[in-house]
């Protein structure tokens, strides 16, 4: 990476990368537990509700919570953060990535390739598949677009990246899975209409809204293009434990291999680099991020 002359040698990219690497080694067992755990809980809701052991509305609340926890474990898988380059463990990325997304009714392959393009072209209006989530006038508009399905114009990106064989291959792999999900959904709704609505379809919508608002909208709101400029540090009234710590999402864009639960420590260590590189909001990062809810009232 070519260094800007304004950046002092002590904040070089090589040094930044070495620090980040030290936080990119640990096995992400928490995420595997959350991903597979929420999928098992969600699946077990079906017999429990259908056999009258728990009320449908209670099932709906639990399913909605599961859906809110469903994306992040898949996101770690998309970056290969379970296998960490070990080819013998690569199956684990795919396994967790696929299973955890059942709750959200999305094929893993599709979210993986579009997410990789989001990283490669963050905030590019033509090439970033998440662009319309982050560059929308309000949270309400984001919610409307997610419910409508209009923010995920996957067909457009198949055209944009039609020359990218790996992208097209993954996209094509995702189609049968997407159709299978739709088929299962339509069969289930005929047999168990209200259960399908309240245990799967509506929770998946709620989970998608939650994920889009906190993962796509807030972290990229008002940011531009460029490695150190496309994601920001932000705070608001909500403690970060309720939004998967997405206030810290910028460190993920800089170093995607840092495990999610290692990000606070990594940011503490990298804070001088982030300030030197003028990451949006970096001067407001507290010295201690670990166990800090990062509330701003």
């Amino acid at each position: 990476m070519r260094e800007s002359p304004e950046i002092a040698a002590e904040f070089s990219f090589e040094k930044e990368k070495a620090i980040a690497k030290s936080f990119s080694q640990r096995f992400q067992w928490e995420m595997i537990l959350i991903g597979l755990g929420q999928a098992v809980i969600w699946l077990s809701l079906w017999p429990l509700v259908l056999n009258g052991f728990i009320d449908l509305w209670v099932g709906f609340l639990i399913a909605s919570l599961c859906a809110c926890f469903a994306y992040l474990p898949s996101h770690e898988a998309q970056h290969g953060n379970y296998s960490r380059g070990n080819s013998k463990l690569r199956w684990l990325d795919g396994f967790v990535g696929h299973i955890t997304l059942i709750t959200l009714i999305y094929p893993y392959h599709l979210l993986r390739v579009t997410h990789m393009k989001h990283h490669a072209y963050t905030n590019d209006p033509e090439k970033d598949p998440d662009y319309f989530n982050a560059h929308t006038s309000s949270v309400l508009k984001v919610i409307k677009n997610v419910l409508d399905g209009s923010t995920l114009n996957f067909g457009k990106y198949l055209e944009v990246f039609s020359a990218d064989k790996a992208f097209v291959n993954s996209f094509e792999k995702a189609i049968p899975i997407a159709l299978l999900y739709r088929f299962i959904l339509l069969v289930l709704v005929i047999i168990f209409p209200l259960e399908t609505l309240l245990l799967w379809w509506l929770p998946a919508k709620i989970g998608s809204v939650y994920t889009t608002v906190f993962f796509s909208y807030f972290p990229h709101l008002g940011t531009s293009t460029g490695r150190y400029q496309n994601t920001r540090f932000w705070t608001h009234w909500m403690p970060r434990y309720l939004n998967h710590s997405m206030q810290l999402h910028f460190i993920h864009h800089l170093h995607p291999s840092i495990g999610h639960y290692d990000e606070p420590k990594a940011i503490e260590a990298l804070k001088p680099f982030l300030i030197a590189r003028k990451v949006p909001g970096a001067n407001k990062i507290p010295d201690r991020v670990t166990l800090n809810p990062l509330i701003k009232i």
Partner: protein
Amino acid sequence: MLIEKFFDHISNWKMAWFGLIFLGSIINAVLQKSSLVGDSPYVSVFAFGAGALIGLAAKIRGAWL
């Protein structure tokens, strides 16, 4: 060829089919539970018809909301 035609059809009419099957089933289940119209013999026709109409409107508009 036949599969291609099937996928083309699904791609073009997915919203209408989703309205008919998914929304129709939901509206039908809700109306069946209603004490007001639950006993009517036409409740399913109305429910699936309403679902199909919503789906068709979404297809024409190109958006659900």
